[in-house]
């Protein structure tokens, strides 16, 4: 290791000394220019967070005034927001919807992705194309008959119309998992087959342990999707079963003329915080997942 690192260090040293001063100055200027652009863009991206945060800490009368800095800091907003709207109920509904739909999607999509990638059967390719084509279907096309069905089942007003279907596979999840399952070497599966394992054993003992990162990524995607889902909740749930996404609208629609902007921002922060924490914990899995979606899609 050291014997390898040493000559490289020397060559860098030599190259650095051989750079003429004017070239070095130009490089420095270029680097400063690049960083200036990056910093300017970064400020643009951060500024909304900054304003949302400081407003969340203002008193109601100070929000939307010219004074910039919270005076006094109104930390009580974070408890007040629970009394102003049924924030606790909305939060619980959000956790229930996001949690159960994530379990449902992952559990039901894994076997399907396995059948579409590692089992050999006639019509597999056609079935896969059919799964992919459903991704193109706008949800508006199916939502009205689904609404009619769920009205007859007396499910409208609950979160069941949103949670139950997730237990029957999700095309996007199936697609991403299939792409990952295909990268697992055939020899590992053969070894399990020689040991007398059936398809079920191969799936649980070989594929799932190896595909943990991919499963994590799709679980994250589904969790975020249902955490954010607005249209589905708006259509199917009611005021008792709203999640935060729709519940936060209480602030702006009920009290239309005088919106308590400080509490709206406090509520928004509490709503986005779990997601941002999740992002920082799993940033790599996340960015790799997004990249995969774009490049393989």
């Amino acid at each position: 290791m050291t014997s390898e690192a040493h000559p490289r260090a020397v060559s860098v040293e030599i190259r650095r000394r051989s750079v003429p001063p004017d070239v070095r100055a130009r490089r420095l200027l270029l680097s400063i220019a690049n960083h200036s652009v990056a910093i300017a863009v970064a400020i643009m991206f951060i500024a909304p967070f900054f304003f949302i945060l400081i407003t969340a800490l203002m008193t109601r009368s100070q929000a939307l005034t010219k004074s910039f800095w919270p005076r006094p800091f109104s930390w009580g907003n974070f408890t007040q927001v629970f009394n102003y709207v049924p924030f606790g109920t909305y939060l619980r509904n959000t956790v229930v919807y996001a949690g159960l739909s994530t379990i449902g999607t992952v559990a039901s999509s894994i076997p399907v992705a396995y059948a579409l990638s590692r089992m050999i059967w006639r019509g597999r390719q056609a079935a896969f194309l059919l799964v992919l084509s459903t991704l193109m279907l706008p949800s508006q096309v199916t939502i009205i008959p689904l609404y009619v069905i769920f009205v007859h089942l007396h499910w409208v007003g609950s979160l069941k119309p949103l949670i139950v279907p997730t237990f029957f596979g999700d095309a996007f999840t199936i697609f991403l998992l299939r792409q990952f399952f295909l990268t697992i070497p055939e020899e590992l599966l053969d070894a399990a087959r020689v040991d007398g394992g059936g398809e079920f054993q191969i799936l649980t003992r070989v594929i799932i342990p190896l595909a943990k990162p991919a499963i994590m990524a799709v679980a994250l995607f589904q969790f975020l999707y249902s955490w954010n889902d607005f249209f589905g909740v708006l259509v199917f749930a009611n005021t008792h079963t709203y999640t935060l996404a729709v519940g936060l609208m209480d602030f702006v629609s009920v009290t239309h003329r005088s919106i308590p902007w400080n509490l709206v921002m406090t509520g928004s922060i509490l709503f986005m915080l779990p997601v941002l924490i999740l992002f920082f914990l799993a940033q790599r899995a996340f960015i790799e997942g997004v990249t995969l979606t774009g490049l393989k899609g």
Partner: protein
Amino acid sequence: MVLLFMAPWIIGFLAFIMYPMFASLYYSFTKYNLLQPPQWAGLFNYRYMFAHDSNFWLSVRNTIWIVVFGTPIQILFAIVTAVTLTRVRRGAGAYRTIFFMPTMVPTVAAALGFLFLLDPAGPIDTILRLLHLPQPLWFSSAQWAKPSLVGLGLWGVGDTMIIFLAALLDVPKQLYEAADIEGAGAWRKFRSITLPMISPVIFFSVVMGVIGGFQYFTEAYVVSGGGQSLGEPQGSLLFYSTWLYQQGFQYTNMGYASALAWLLFVVVMICTAILIRTSNRWVFYQGGFR
């Protein structure tokens, strides 16, 4: 065994996709208000839409606006931010995190945040006033409401940016070195090397942007305050999906809403087909596959 593994999807496909698709096609030829069974109405819904429904045309115009202006600006900004990231060495990871973070903010929270930021008495206009610049009324004015939504979209450009970043980093270095030897300038290199190499990602983003743009709903719903004020100010935020939602779930015109949904579906399919057809003229696939 295969059937057992495929079972969840097969059941889901039949119950939540196949049946609803054909049911909504059927409803689209009926009058249906949920209380009485659907009544056959032939092409009435479709004829009414084109001939008598001025809100339909308004929503079509607004939706086309957001697709035609929103999508290219979004993609352009994604490329600019991704290129910015490739040009810094130190701190690239931190910049990437900052650029990406707004994407994680739930749409409703982001829309509420922008509704506040762009309030005529809010921080942005206060700053503009201090700088003696014009202070638009943003979401409160019919001219500025849609551009404001585009701005909101740019804040969440992160996921598109990340895909472009991956594509930019994938471009073989030798190509740029060869261009350097030929004496090509920065713009020439971008146009003749970078752009063709990332064209598959541009294509993907255009397709996704167009599909998403036609279904644009949540942001417009939130900033117009929902409920009765949907589509305000002055109908400038009445998008196609907004009108479909109002017809279906506020007025329970299930037949008419189904007709709107099917027209949307057909238009999205046609646009996607056109994009795919014309893609071989401008999308360059490395190695010539596909």
